[in-house]
């Protein structure tokens, strides 16, 4: 038997369903620009039919909205995360390499080459008139500029390393914050979904957090089924691992922490750089993401001494140190590197004689002075004698050269300086190879020869050394930029595909809005019609 108001109920269910659908449309529209939002769709079905006992079959009872689902392709999420790890690493490297390039400031009118040219040009001027005080003063000035170039470049690198170190800390903090947020969301999502619902918006927020995390470090995220719940559904846990260890495991989180190094990884490093550890003290394996980019540039010395195989700040510091040491020892002592240490190949500044101001007195011209030394206490240049104060061997001793060379290892780009003897008296600049010959430039000629000494460095002459350093840096920076661009394009492409699936299309939503509105109107019309039927039945029938 048919119920009296059955038709009204059917129409009413249509009203409800349409309304629910419109709500979802509204939700989509409101979140059209929400980052990480995936569009939702209400699931609509016909409600359970009634079996009619008179043998005429089933009668439909209307419609119902059974749930709201999130439209998302999880494969694309995984894809996004794995590409984003490389994206984070290379875009960070590209950014940092840019800074390194700016530090070198080449090619320009104020870079190394210009300064080196200036120094050697001043030596040329001196060679033409070694007794000229003006020419001597010019040499001191140009040499000081050269030394200062290295000082400021090295200081800039130190500052830069320090900045990167701070960024490492910030990134680690960021990872911890995101991990905690994900853990919280895990709890909420799990609790909601226990009852069979899907926590669409919370899942979106969680995915967005994992997106951010994947840019920072090499993480992997997945949902793991842990068994069955009492109601028969899968018991799903969400896990994030970093370098093989779990960062977030369902409701628990293991944080990262930074520990100041007690011993330097590179001798060129500044003090107390951070090592990243798990909170439980274990070491963490960072192989990707921004963190990897930061660590590579901060610690990379091209694999020397177990450092990352990347040419980062310590690599350039080491190269600068190598330059000033080799240059200083060749200029001062005339030593050049051979297979086993150093050899005294030509006469150096120390072998020459300076300007003899008064030829009539018994005092001979200054000699035995080293042109370059380093900055000592209070950043004041030390004297020639102080530089080799540690040498115990006699000059005739075979160990002498090695001991002297050992002293030069104390010179770094940061403390490189013109010696105080030269600064205090430009007449101490040695030009002559004999006492009292103020027009003699035999030593100066040898010093100028350093500029074109192809065997000074394995890269060649001083300028070749710098040229190859700058070219190498350019290539590395270019590579980082190219990788960053490619990787960004890949990420962008995956993100596009994700947005294609999950994004809100306003036209679509408007169409649906019209559709559901019509559906609502139709159901309402149905109620009016039913009303008219009952009007006929109740009010018109048998009323006399």
């Amino acid at each position: 038997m048919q119920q009296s108001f059955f038709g009204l109920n059917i129409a009413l269910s249509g009203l409800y369903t349409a309304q629910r659908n419109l709500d979802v449309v509204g939700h989509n529209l409101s979140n059209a620009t929400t980052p990480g939002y995936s569009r939702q769709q209400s699931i609509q079905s016909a409600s359970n039919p009634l079996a009619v006992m008179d043998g005429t079959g089933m009668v439909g009872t209307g419609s119902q909205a059974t749930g709201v689902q999130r439209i998302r392709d999880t494969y694309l999420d995984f894809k996004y995360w794995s590409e984003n790890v490389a994206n984070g690493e290379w875009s960070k490297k590209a950014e940092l390499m840019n800074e390194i390039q700016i530090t070198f400031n080449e090619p320009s009118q104020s870079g190394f080459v210009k300064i080196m040219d200036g120094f050697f040009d001043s030596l040329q001027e001196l060679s033409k008139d070694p007794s000229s005080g003006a020419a001597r003063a010019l040499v001191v000035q140009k040499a000081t500029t050269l030394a200062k170039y290295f000082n400021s470049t090295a200081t800039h690198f130190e500052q830069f390393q320090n900045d990167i170190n701070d960024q490492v800390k910030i990134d680690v903090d960021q990872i911890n914050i995101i991990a905690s947020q994900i853990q919280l969301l895990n709890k909420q999502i799990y609790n909601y979904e226990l009852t069979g619902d899907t926590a669409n918006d919370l899942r979106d927020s969680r995915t967005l957090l994992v997106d951010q995390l994947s840019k920072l470090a090499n993480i992997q995220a997945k949902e793991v089924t842990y068994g069955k719940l009492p109601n028969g559904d899968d018991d799903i846990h969400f896990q994030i691992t970093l370098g093989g260890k779990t960062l977030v495991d369902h409701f628990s989180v293991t944080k990262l922490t930074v520990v100041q190094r007690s011993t330097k990884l590179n001798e060129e490093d500044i003090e107390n750089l951070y090592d990243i550890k798990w909170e439980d003290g274990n070491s963490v394996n960072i192989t990707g993401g921004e963190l990897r980019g930061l660590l590579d540039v901060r610690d990379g010395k091209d694999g020397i001494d177990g450092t990352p195989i990347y040419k980062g700040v310590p690599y350039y510091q080491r190269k600068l140190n190598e330059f000033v040491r080799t240059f200083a020892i060749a200029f001062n002592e005339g030593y050049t590197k051979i297979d086993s240490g150093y050899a005294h190949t030509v006469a150096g500044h120390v072998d020459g004689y300076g300007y003899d101001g008064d030829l009539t007195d018994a005092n001979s011209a200054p000699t035995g002075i080293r042109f370059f030394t380093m900055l000592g206490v209070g950043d004041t240049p030390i004297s020639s004698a102080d530089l080799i104060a540690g040498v115990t061997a006699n000059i005739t001793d075979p160990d002498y050269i090695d001991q002297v060379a050992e002293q030069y290892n104390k010179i770094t780009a940061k403390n490189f300086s013109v010696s105080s003897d030269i600064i205090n008296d430009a007449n101490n600049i040695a030009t002559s190879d004999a006492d009292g010959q103020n027009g003699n430039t035999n030593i100066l000629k040898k010093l100028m020869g350093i500029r074109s000494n192809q065997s000074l460095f394995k890269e060649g002459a001083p300028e070749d050394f710098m040229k190859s350093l700058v070219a190498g840096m350019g290539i590395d920076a270019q590579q980082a930029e190219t990788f960053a661009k490619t990787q960004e394009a890949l990420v962008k492409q995956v993100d596009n595909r994700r947005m294609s699936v999950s994004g809100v299309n306003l036209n679509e939503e408007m169409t649906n809005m019209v559709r559901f509105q019509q559906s609502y109107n139709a159901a309402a019309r149905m109620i009016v019609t039913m009303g008219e039927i009952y009007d006929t039945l109740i009010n018109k029938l048998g009323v006399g």
Partner: protein
Amino acid sequence: MRITNNMLVSNMLTALGNNESRMMKYQNQLNTGKKIQLPSDDPIVAARALKLRTDVSKIEQYQKNLGDAKSWVDATDTALAQIGDILKRAKELATQAANGTNSPTETGNIGEEMKQLKIQLVHIANTTYSGRYMFSGFKTDQKLINDDESSPDFGKFEIDVNTITEKIQFEIGEGDNININVCGGDIFNLGGNAADGVEPAMMALFTNIITEMEAGDNDGVRSLLNQFDVQIDNLLRVRADVGARQNRIDLSEDRMSNDLVNMTDLMSKNEDADPAETIMNLKMEENVYQSSLAGGARIIQQTLVDFLR
């Protein structure tokens, strides 16, 4: 592919960003006139730029050195010419004095002029160029010859100068040095060295002939006459050498100015942006940028929302 609104916006922003960065690239090229701003823009160009800069800077320095070398050698040549004149005049005087018709008084008078020539010769031997004694070898701040007329050592060398080793050299090219000085012994001591306290051959000739003239000995003067030719020949040898060096300096100057033009040309080709090409490119990028802006503005506005009223 299903297109969504965020995709449209994000793609358009990416495209706009790319356009902007290309515009910025050409903008920078125009502003700086250089093809590259950082080595990573083109590492090869950057490395070559460094090399060429050094080359250009070296050439400019060599040009300066050549200028200075030229002045020094020219000054030497002038001094040598003066010495030549003195020798010529001295030879004339000696020939005159050798004539047996001269009375001893007349010969003695000629000896007076001869003395003046000797003094002048000593002063030329001590010529300075920008405050430095030109013929003193490496001892450029010391006089070559004693010029104190009252001293018994007048006309004798005051310092040791080794003609072979005391060569002042200027670098006038890569590994190319030119010897710009002439050592005093070479001129005044017939190609030998200068030794402290020794009277140079040229001065000795003057001393001897003055003695003969003062004594009025015509024959004695005659016997020394051929000595002047020896001195003049030696001087000519030195002048020829100096002349050859002047020649070499001129040639090098010529080559250096050619090199400089070539190098600066290379440098410009290597690193300078072509303004016409850059402006064209910039204009083109501006066009693209404006079109994408206009297009974007249209696409993003229009949705069904605009029509459902």
